[in-house]
């Protein structure tokens, strides 16, 4: 069957199991959009307000579903608008396939209208990218892109298709979808060394990252923790891998992690890191990080082993397989002293919680926790609200937390929430701040036109809270450009876009508003007024060690 390049793109996307693409049309993708028009019954296209929104939506689509996200943009500005979304996906190992149009091959290199070397631009922020200059290779390039995006440590792949390649024709035949490239199987010696360290440990800490999500089943992790009597902590990306209400689960550790989780990690004699990269936000000063522990590091990416912190045992290979083998070989044991110590950390942490009728971040999130169903996706933007969400949100199933970790992309949330809601068909709550929301609020239009069930909880403190917090702590309260002084009426704004809006200035108002908003099928927004001086605590200052941890406000006033 002879097809045009554009037809090949549509047919190959469908062949690869893609049901939804996010994008924005333009001059050099008109041919692709013509085929999307003709195939609208086979492939759903979600028109976003801006290409950045499309890239975040494709990212959120994966995080909530585990399926590769796809976004499409035209050449030049369309393509460059994807860049932040692609970089976000790269730093969080999210498989997305981005397809961009480009000027016809004979105009390449001539600074033609809307011409950009997008493969050059995205070289350092993609797992791999392709410039297709031969239509006969197009189908296989798309297949390889999907395969590569999913294989090993996942990541974004970009395919740049000049307009004449979209028009050119060649023979096309569907092919069966190939399984991802096989991961290396970890060698037995490294498994045995890990088992030996785990068996002799008395204070084990299982440390879950994004690489554990999808690779390890929740029940297997919990059963293993039970078997070796370990506690479980996680990175931002590891949140929702195990249910937050499990007594062994201490929550996120690191710069803004739970007190108990960070303390337990620092006092553990063994850390089993699964799919983590020991990022600076997680470790603080690596010279002082977890000095009492043997580190066993399990990762599908060999380059992560010993990259940021040295591991006593590095296990390179398929995480699912290696984890199962370790779990099977370890001896059952009990560590009552360790559990008692950790319980003290937890008690100390919980003694800091207090009840107040004020609209505090914790109150807001507790109300959300009490209202939402187990399958609800929680998406966030980046900043204080993100850390509060990471600290206080309850998760009962994997892939329910959608947040930009590595790149820390303000403006990520709304697009990602829409992608997550459309992909998972689950209700999605976006927790955002007025700073982040302001960056890409144009995607309200997308939420309304698609009817995406996104409840936006806007933590409105009138400041760029996280930067302000640092200015308070490290810059003598010089609030340089972090006080927004905007006159935006977010309720009117949401209504202008066609969404339903609520305002909450105290807890009772919020409880009422959230119940109503959550019950509405389409997008809603609740503008919540919170205090500008709320802090995210605890806090491990950048480059600090566990002893530098700021636990409560009273320490700041010293």
């Amino acid at each position, binding site marked *: 069957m002879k097809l045009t390049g554009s037809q090949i793109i549509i047919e190959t996307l469908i062949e690869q199991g893609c049901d939804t693409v996010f994008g924005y049309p333009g001059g050099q993708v008109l041919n692709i959009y013509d085929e999307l028009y003709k195939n609208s019954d086979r492939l759903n296209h979600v028109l976003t307000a801006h290409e950045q929104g499309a890239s975040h939506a494709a990212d959120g689509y994966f995080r909530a579903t585990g399926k590769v996200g796809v976004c499409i943009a035209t050449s030049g500005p369309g393509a460059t608008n994807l860049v932040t979304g692609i970089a976000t996906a790269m730093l969080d190992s999210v498989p997305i396939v981005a397809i961009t149009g480009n000027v016809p091959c004979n105009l390449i290199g001539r600074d033609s209208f809307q011409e950009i070397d997008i*493969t*050059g631009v995205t*070289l*350092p922020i993609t*797992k*791999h990218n392709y*410039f297709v200059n031969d239509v006969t290779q197009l189908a296989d390039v798309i297949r390889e892109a999907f395969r*590569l995006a999913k294989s090993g440590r996942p990541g974004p792949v970009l395919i740049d298709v000049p307009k004449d390649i979209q028009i050119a024709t060649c023979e096309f035949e569907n092919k069966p979808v190939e399984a991802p490239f096989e991961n290396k199987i970890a060698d037995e010696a490294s498994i045995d060394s890990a088992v030996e360290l785990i068996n002799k440990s008395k204070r084990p800490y299982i440390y879950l990252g994004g690489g554990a999500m999808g690779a390890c089943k929740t029940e297997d992790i919990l059963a293993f923790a039970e078997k070796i009597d370990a506690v479980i902590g996680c990175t931002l990306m590891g949140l929702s891998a195990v249910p937050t209400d499990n007594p062994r689960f201490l929550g996120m550790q690191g710069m803004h992690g739970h007190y108990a989780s960070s303390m337990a990690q620092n006092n553990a004699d063994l850390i089993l890191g699964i799919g983590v990269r020991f990022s600076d936000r997680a470790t603080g000063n690596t010279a002082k990080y977890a000095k009492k522990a043997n580190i066993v590091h399990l990762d599908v*990416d*060999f*380059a992560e082993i*010993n*990259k940021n912190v040295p591991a006593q045992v590095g296990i390179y290979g398929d995480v699912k397989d290696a984890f199962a083998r370790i779990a099977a070989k370890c001896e059952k044991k009990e560590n009552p002293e360790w559990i008692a110590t950790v319980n003290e950390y937890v008690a100390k942490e919980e003694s800091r919680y207090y009840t107040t009728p004020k609209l505090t971040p914790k109150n807001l999130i507790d109300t959300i926790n009490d209202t939402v169903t187990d399958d609800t996706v929680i998406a966030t933007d980046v900043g204080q609200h993100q850390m509060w969400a990471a600290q206080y949100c309850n998760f009962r199933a994997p892939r329910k937390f959608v947040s930009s970790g590595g790149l820390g992309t303000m403006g990520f949330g709304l697009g990602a929430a829409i992608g997550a809601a459309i992909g998972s068909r689950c209700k999605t709550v976006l927790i955002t701040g007025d700073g982040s929301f302001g960056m890409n609020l144009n995607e309200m239009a997308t939420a309304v036109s698609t009817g995406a069930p996104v409840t936006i909880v806007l933590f409105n403190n009138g400041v760029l809270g996280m930067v302000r917090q640092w200015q308070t702590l490290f810059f003598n309260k010089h609030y340089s450009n972090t006080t927004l002084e905007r006159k935006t009426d977010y309720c009117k704004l949401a209504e202008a876009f066609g969404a339903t809006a609520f305002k909450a200035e105290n807890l009772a108002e919020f409880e009422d508003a959230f119940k109503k908003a959550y019950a509405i099928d389409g997008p809603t927004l609740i503008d919540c007024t919170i205090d500008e001086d709320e802090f995210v605590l605890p806090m491990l200052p950048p480059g600090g060690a566990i002893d530098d941890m700021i636990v409560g406000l009273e320490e700041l006033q010293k």
Partner: protein
Amino acid sequence: MSKKNQFTIAVYVENKFGVLTRVTSMFTRRGFNIDCLTVGETESPEYSRITITMSGDGYAKTQMINQLRKLFNVKKVEELEPETSVNRELALIKVKNDPATRQEIMSAVSIFRSSIIDYSPAALCIEITGDPSKIDAFIEIMKPFEIIEMCRTGILAIERGAGSLLNK
């Protein structure tokens, strides 16, 4: 040219458009500062071989090798240990042709087993091949005679013995 802590890595890459850029872009992104890089054909038409020389500690070396191996178009990455491999570099050096010093230059050329490949009344053009330290030494000797122009290829290296890195 030859430095302390220097190591040499051979990289087989797919012979495709843009692969060299992918490799060098990774160096920039990861903050590797390389000393020299050569690239050319190999025994297999499918692959080009890049020889990279870099200075750094063991950590930098491992990171460099690991990050190279992660690139999709990279087929093989191996370190060439100095004890088990031979290194060669070629330099072309244009030196001022002065009757007063000509004989001295020609003696040095002969001792270093290099050769004069172009002769004009004003200049001698010398070709020298060898390991980088030999070339360094020769350049030092030529400096007093006034080097007009000079270029070096960078290091090429191959393992001793009958093996092929590609099949290792």
